């Protein structure tokens, strides 16, 4: 019924449907395999950084270790604790895993974006299509929606376990994810402001446009540069916190909470949480690449043209961030919970808020043809205003702190 109403599926209906299904299956298999490799990569890299060998038995360089672990988990006893809310307990892994798969659908994976006619369209079996599973007009909002649903997975897992550590872990986790989601949303809003569209494909197209050039050396029109670096940094920090990866892995701080929200999970249920976690790492890296580093649109350089070159660029950039996340884990000590909340609420959110407004002002000035003087006046005036607000915020923080010290001293007599 829905398909009949849609112009995309009028005409060669079966052909389009088959291409769609093919893309879905390829994305699905790709995700599973990449998770397998990512777990291996993380273990191998972190053991290199810690001066040990890491997995080395299963397959060449231990590359099949994850597969072996996965198969082993199928044969492990699956327990549901007596205190558990059985429905919530069993539902939670689905709510974690399914969004992890779905987010990847909106990430553009390849296509030729360079040159004048580069619009990322590839032809598959005589059908024009994009190298991404779906390009809904709401694009990046879908990513935010899915990461919100993933919070339900964590919350229900902890609450449904009927045990103390999971409950504590999940309450922490949801407060953390919720806090950083605000910063995440604001950083994305800055990109949307630049692109003028929510569709991820349009974002890549916008970034593939030629940026300004310094002589022979062209600076790409990537959002990391165009939006002035701050949204990128905010997104990277907030994204790491959203993933519950080190240094923000308070959710499963082993010393305090055993395993966090999945303490009571065993066997394949645990495996699915684990799978979702690593899949989210890959997807978050892919989203960062799409939003800020031009996705499959690389600098033209001397490389040959073709749809596959976009894919090569995409994976190169993706790899940088995958490496970075592992590097974070090997390098940075874990935050304390109050430091985590302070960073999110008192620094990242006000900063990205101010940055969004300033970018909006510059964009409006651009479209209204403000003179240079007027633009500078706006920027300086706004920065002065931000300084005032920052002073106000600092004063508020100090007031709250001194009130609390006073209350404690009063209590101690």
């Amino acid at each position, binding site marked *: 019924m829905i398909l009949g109403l849609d112009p995309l599926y009028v005409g060669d209906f079966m052909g389009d449907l088959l291409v769609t299904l093919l893309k879905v299956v390829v994305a699905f298999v790709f995700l599973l395999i990449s998770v397998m490799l990512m777990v291996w990569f993380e273990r191998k890299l972190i053991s290199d950084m810690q001066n040990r060998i890491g997995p080395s038995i299963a397959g060449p360089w231990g590359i099949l270790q994850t597969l072996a672990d996965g198969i082993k*988990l199928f044969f492990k006893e*699956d327990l549901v*604790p007596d205190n558990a809310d059985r429905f919530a307990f069993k539902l939670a892994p689905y709510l974690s895993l399914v969004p992890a798969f779905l987010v990847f659908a909106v990430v553009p994976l390849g296509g030729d974006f360079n040159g004048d006619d580069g619009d990322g369209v590839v032809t598959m079996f005589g059908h024009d299509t994009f190298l991404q*599973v779906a390009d809904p007009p709401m694009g990046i909002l879908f990513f935010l929606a899915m990461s919100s649903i993933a919070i339900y997975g964590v919350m229900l897992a902890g609450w449904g376990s009927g045990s103390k550590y999971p409950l504590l872990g999940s309450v922490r986790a949801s407060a953390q994810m919720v*806090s950083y989601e605000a910063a995440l949303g604001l950083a994305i809003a800055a990109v949307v402001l630049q692109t003028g569209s929510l569709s991820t494909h349009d974002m890549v197209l916008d970034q593939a446009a030629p940026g300004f050039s310094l002589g022979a050396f062209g600076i790409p029109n990537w959002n990391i540069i165009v939006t002035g670096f701050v949204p990128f940094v905010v997104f990277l920090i907030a994204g790491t916190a959203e993933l519950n990866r080190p240094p923000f892995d308070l959710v499963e701080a082993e010393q305090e909470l055993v395993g966090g929200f999945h303490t009571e999970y065993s066997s394949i249920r645990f495996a699915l949480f684990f799978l979702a976690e690593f899949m989210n790492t890959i997807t978050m890296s892919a989203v960062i690449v799409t939003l800020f580093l031009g996705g499959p649109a690389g600098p033209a350089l001397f490389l040959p043209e073709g749809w596959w070159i976009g894919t090569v660029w995409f994976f190169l950039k993706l790899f940088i961030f995958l490496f970075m996340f592992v590097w974070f884990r090997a390098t940075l000590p874990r935050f304390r919970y109050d430091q985590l909340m302070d960073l999110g609420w008192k620094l990242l959110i006000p900063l990205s808020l101010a940055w*969004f407004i300033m970018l909006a002002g510059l964009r409006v000035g651009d479209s209204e043809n403000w003179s240079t003087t007027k633009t500078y006046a706006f920027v300086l005036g706004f920065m002065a205003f931000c300084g005032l607000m920052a002073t106000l915020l600092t004063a508020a923080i100090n007031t*709250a702190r001194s009130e609390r010290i006073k209350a404690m001293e009063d209590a101690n007599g």
Partner: protein
Amino acid sequence: MLGQYLPLLALLLLAAAFAAGSFIASGLLAPRNPSLAKRAAYECGIVPSRETPERFPVRFFLVAMIFIVFDIEIIFFYPYAVAFGGLGVFGLVLIMVFTFAVFESFVYLIGNGALEWGPLKQVARPSGAVSPDRTVETTIRRVGLEDRGIPADDGQAA
């Protein structure tokens, strides 16, 4: 454009089927001999003495409420970010006023200690166990013969 949602639906079904299939496979392959100890809540080997608390610190609730305020603000930002071109300076001023209103109430919340977490700076607390005139001199016992009432060797032995 509704056709772009079909792949999402397909992927959703595939992912759900994958999870369900894993559970079924695990159900067929895994051993099943639960015992009371296995089914009890895990607390590092200690038998749980209390029920799982159903209450948790109200701070988390506050965080959720403040988040809703910001989330609504962000929800208004997205349409603006897409459509700011047609709104011009008028839209810019409006979004600034709106942001200021939200931020100002956020500052008020912080000033009232809504997001005040964690340990304070070490406050000197008078304790009955230690006398206030304790100093480094009185607590460290010296090693050696000085100040112990034992006459020091005057060098004759050498």
